[in-house]
């Protein structure tokens, strides 16, 4: 999908570099996401997907390059203003300290409340709606510790939605989800994107990435290897270069979506050091 001139660029990162203790995690990365687009970040473990998402959300301060959100420089924006337009769903839900699911989702309203304000009926309603969309409303009174990993992940998505962001960043949103919820959650994000939300998600599952994203960015060792539409990017040669996995790409006859069959590691040693979900899926 191309970004023409009159689509405002929601996220525009140019030549972003980030290193920690002499280890370069991002090396001159360019990523752009136009309003109402769903951009997928794919790449092997350690490629820099999470680091990139954390940089775009302002959690990490990049050393070089520039990030702008809706045309405004991320570094000049107060954290509160960023939180009012951008939400991040973390990959690993943090310790939740005994808060209930509803209390946690309601925290999504904090960036919109003044120092002396408390949540109004409207905030309550927004939080409940976010829980309805993510099918987490039954968890409301339960503490997060009593929920499964996938249930917690959906609660954190509900909190991000309660933030009413215009930009949604998701770090492996489906990593703990059962197959039903992989489809419902990515379907939900897709519907929100069609309604004008901008989403950038790190996704391990290439089939899901192909099916739901408009644009894919392949990262490897902190650099953008290639990017483009799923059809352009998901070629057996690209997949082998980025992941070290031989694959076949075809049109799935039932859904009509692009489908990737992972065949085998291209070379045994590469696969051995590359023990992520993709290679183990190839083994089954």
């Amino acid at each position, binding site marked *: 999908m191309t970004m023409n001139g009159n689509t405002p660029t929601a996220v525009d990162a140019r030549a972003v570099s980030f290193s920690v203790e002499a280890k370069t995690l991002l090396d001159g990365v360019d990523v752009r996401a136009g309003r109402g687009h769903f951009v997928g970040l794919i790449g092997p473990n350690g490629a820099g997907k999470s680091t990139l998402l*954390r940089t775009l*959300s*302002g*959690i990490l301060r990049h050393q070089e390059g520039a990030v702008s959100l809706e045309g405004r420089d991320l570094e000049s924006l*107060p*954290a*509160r*203003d*960023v*939180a*009012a337009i951008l*939400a*991040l769903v*973390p990959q690993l839900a*943090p*310790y*939740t*300290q*005994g*808060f*209930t699911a*509803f*209390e946690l989702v309601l*925290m*999504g309203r*904090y*960036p919109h*409340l003044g*120092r*002396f304000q*408390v*949540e109004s009926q409207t905030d*309550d309603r927004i939080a409940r709606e976010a829980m309805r969309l993510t099918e987490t409303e039954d968890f*409301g*009174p339960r*503490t997060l*510790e009593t929920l499964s990993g996938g249930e917690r992940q959906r609660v954190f998505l509900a909190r991000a939605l309660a*933030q009413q962001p215009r930009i949604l960043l998701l770090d492996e949103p489906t990593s703990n989800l059962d197959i039903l919820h992989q489809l419902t959650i990515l379907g939900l994000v897709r519907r929100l994107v069609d309604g004008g939300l901008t989403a950038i998600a790190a996704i391990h599952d290439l089939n899901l990435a192909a099916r739901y994203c408009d644009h894919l960015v392949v990262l490897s060792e902190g650099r953008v290897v290639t990017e483009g539409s799923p059809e352009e990017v998901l070629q057996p040669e690209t997949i082998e270069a980025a992941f070290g996995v031989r694959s076949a790409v075809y049109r799935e006859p039932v859904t009509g979506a692009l489908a990737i069959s992972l065949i085998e590691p291209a070379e045994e040693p590469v696969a051995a050091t590359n023990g992520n979900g993709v290679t183990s899926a190839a083994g089954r």
Partner: protein
Amino acid sequence: MQAARLATLRGYRQMGISARLAIGAVVLLALVLVVGLVSLSLGPVDISLRHVAWIILSGVGFETPEFGRTEQLVIEQIRLPRIIVGASVGAALGVAGATMQGLFRNPMADPGIIGVSAGGALGAVVAIAAGLSALFFLALPLFAFAGAIAAAFLVYGIAVVGGHFSMATLLLAGVAVNAFLGAIVSAIIIFLPDNELLREVLFWLAGGLDARAWEHVRIATPLIAGSTALLMLLSRDLNLLMLGDDEARSMGVRVGVTRVVLLAVSALATGAAVAVSGTIAFVGLVTPHVLRLALGPDNRVLIPMSALGGAVFVMVADTVARLVIEPAEMRVGILTAFVGAPFFIALLIKNKRQVYSL
């Protein structure tokens, strides 16, 4: 019975924040008033509750029946300031404990354990040992404030060495600093030149509220009220900090500044408490802990309720301390530890799962 209680508490947690605050405040404020009135009437001079009420009402300008001069003096000059100091100290320790437990994401944190109280105590002991407190009255409280805040920032400084902040380092550094400051206090005690000073230091270290007067109220109470108000304003940010630095930052909290302010303000409240009462153990640990089990972890409720709960805890402990070995007095710090420690252990055993998932 147990089920009914749990259902009530669960219902409480589903109420809006304003309702939770209002209900908690009404219940705990009523408790503060009842305990306060009972405490005012008890002591070597027995004063009936009716007379206590008259004395207080006439004190604020109401017409009341006659009561004895002695009774009035005992209430106005001895018991009332002492009870207000006790309530303030309890409130300070309660909010400081609640804040630190949130800040450190650890239910074991409290001003006593991370060395802030020990810093205050060292400051006070230095003031006594050097003879400064005998020279002018404000020396001891000033040294206690300085000690508490210096200890807090020493611990924080250790945790941020190298530019990378670590919460675990903060807690461990606190434990180490606590031990170190305790050793300095012990060394000072051993080298004290005369027994009079030694007695004064030891007496003060045990933590007590005897002979607390209006000047102590003036030193501590406004500071503690101000710190509590400030911590309440920051309690929403503290909720997010409890979930981790990244979480807090991505939700718009300025993590570094907020953490320093929370630590400084809770150290100030602790310093104010230590300055007028010595080190009173376990109030800062137990109070927020018990309230969190009942009311949930939301600091917007927990911090003000810990202030009131801590006040009740110290007022009750002080009343018992005054009466238990009449005509002599038990030190309130000994009593809070004596009752607080077994109570806390019982609670740990009973709620093992919740405590660890906290």
